[in-house]
């Protein structure tokens, strides 16, 4: 097994999917010759040609809408939205159609498609290149939403996503693209969509995280371990459907919880995690669940991003306060 980063893991998986299944087509902006602005599709155009790896016009609603038609028509499209901040013009297609056609047709038709969406902050990018808009997707019935935080999960979740008969939003944390390498099996495997991953076991408090917040949570857990505090780090990994039983089980064990995410606090997925804890572990809770999140502001110009994003200072503080109660 080679040690690879997340970009390579996704790239290899896409290559294998294209090779194994003639129904798979990739479409998006700059994914062809250019190999994608993050080079995730590098080499695929050369290998599979323009009919399988399609550079589209600059039109997100068109991309997602065309992918929906392709999926209903028997292909397995994998669309790329260049940055999550540019998903918004295409939201209607996800909300009105991708998520509804199965229901609307009383299951006569299915929409097996994947939308890959790089997301999140921390890379000093221009405005609207650092958004975390997962809450819009999680509130949209009929979509599944996954977020790998490791190369291993990226590969396994992508295979699992392609095996669904539901549309899947596959969120790729930009900051983790090249951040860590790990051994990833060369053969095909699926990481099931649904179950959360216990990234680190602990007894005193559960931290719920996804994407680039997972390594942050792990760093804090390590730090706190030195102080004798045992923090459980949960990588939710699937945001829709949420693993409500897994969330409850962890908090029933630890009695305390903190949720951390990059998106603004109000109405973020963190609120749903809190509500789920309230429903599944209320009687075990020893303190209010804390949320450490982006602020209720648009993502700021990058001179401010280190202050906007949850960091060790803020997460440690919240954990310590939650333990104090």
């Amino acid at each position: 097994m080679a040690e690879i980063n997340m970009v390579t893991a996704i790239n290899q998986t896409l290559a294998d999917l294209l090779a194994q299944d003639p129904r798979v087509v990739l479409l998006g902006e700059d994914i062809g010759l250019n190999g994608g602005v993050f080079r995730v599709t590098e080499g695929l155009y050369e290998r599979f040609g323009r009919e399988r790896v399609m550079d589209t016009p600059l039109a997100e609603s068109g991309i997602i809408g065309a992918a929906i038609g392709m999926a209903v028509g028997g292909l397995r499209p994998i669309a790329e939205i260049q940055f999550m901040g540019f998903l918004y013009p295409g939201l209607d297609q996800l909300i009105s159609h991708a998520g509804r056609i199965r229901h609307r047709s009383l299951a006569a038709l299915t929409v097996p498609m994947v939308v890959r969406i790089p997301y999140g902050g921390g890379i000093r990018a221009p405005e609207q290149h650092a958004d975390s808009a997962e809450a819009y997707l999680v509130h949209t019935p009929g979509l599944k939403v996954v977020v790998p935080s490791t190369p291993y999960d990226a590969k396994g979740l992508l295979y699992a996503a392609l095996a669904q008969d539901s549309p899947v939003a596959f969120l790729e944390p930009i900051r983790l693209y090249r951040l860590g390498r790990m051994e990833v099996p060369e053969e095909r495997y699926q990481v099931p969509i649904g179950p959360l991953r216990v990234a680190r076991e602990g007894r005193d408090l559960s931290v719920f995280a996804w994407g680039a917040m997972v390594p942050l949570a792990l760093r804090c857990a390590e730090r706190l371990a030195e102080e004798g505090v045992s923090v459980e780090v949960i990588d939710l990994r699937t945001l829709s459907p949420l693993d409500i039983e897994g969330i409850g089980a962890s908090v029933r064990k630890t009695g305390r919880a903190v949720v951390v995410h990059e998106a603004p606090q109000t109405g973020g997925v963190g609120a749903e995690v809190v509500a789920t804890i309230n429903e599944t572990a209320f009687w075990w809770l020893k303190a209010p669940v804390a949320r450490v999140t982006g602020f209720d502001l648009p993502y700021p110009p990058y001179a401010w991003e280190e202050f906007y994003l949850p960091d060790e200072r803020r997460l440690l503080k919240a954990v310590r306060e939650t333990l104090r109660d």
Partner: protein
Amino acid sequence: METWPLYRVLGPEATDSDRVPDAIKLKIYEDMVLLRSFDEKTITLQRQGRVGTFPPSIGQEAAEIASAHALSKQDWIAPSYRDHGALYVHGVPFENVILFAMGKASSISGDVRALPTSIPIATHLPHAVGLAWAARQRGESVVAMAYFGDGGTSEGDFHEALNFAGVLKAPVIFFCQNNGWAISVPVRLQTASETLAQKALAYGISGVRVDGNDALAVYQAVQAARERALAGAGPTLIEAVTYRLGPHTTADDPTRYRPREELEAWQSQDPLLRLGQYLAERGLLSEADQEAMQARARDWINQAIEAAEATPPVDPTAMFRYLYSDPPLRLRQQMAQLQAALQEEVP
């Protein structure tokens, strides 16, 4: 600028010759009669509270029916809310249309190659592009055709779909029924472009303007577009110029916004009259045939209504069945909660 002639077969101002086989003409006419009867009857049902809001296509029967007859059953259609006529021709029985209007069923049924009715305007046009592309990739010799209205041309999705289709040279037909109005908004407030067909120029695709109340012209225009698409010549935007003689839906009152004279002028262009007269003149249809056809239509429709109304009330929890093949735990819990609540006495 290129001028946009109006293709017409029926009537003294014909600009195109008739190439439609007689049997097809008769079938088109018969289906138009059926659709007219259906719409008239369903408006009545709605007034009696037996179905929900209903969008009749009265006045647009030629465009609806003839366009769908020009397709193969293997072609895909992507209809809008007013296209039960096209869905019927493509294979959805009227009984299902009634069930849909009763809020009990999907707008499609069986294995008809149609998307379910799209309510948000023009959002299904990109789907037609994707369907066409998928068919081409899979080596199928079929087209996809999207149905929409004049108002639909203003939406961003219209633009994105036609532009995509142009670049891909996808075998897709954009069939726009310009019925003069988008609810209360007349076409001249919808766009400053003189015709809708000329919008094709923005995408480097074919644009055709056809008399939408002339069933034969519509049939020929769709057939030609289909042949072009299958020959690899790419998409066509067809503007079928027609008129909605009725309300937008049963919830609409067109007398609020629509000049009476305009309506009357178009009533004389009724597509049923025009095709009926043509068939009569050519001895293809006697008065007795016509009456028999109408009687048959009424019978069929009454049967369809009876059948639809005889279906049992919906199972409350059935709505949970269709969204996922693997409903997640919370959804299963929600279904259980509903079941439990339904056990409670009604307060």
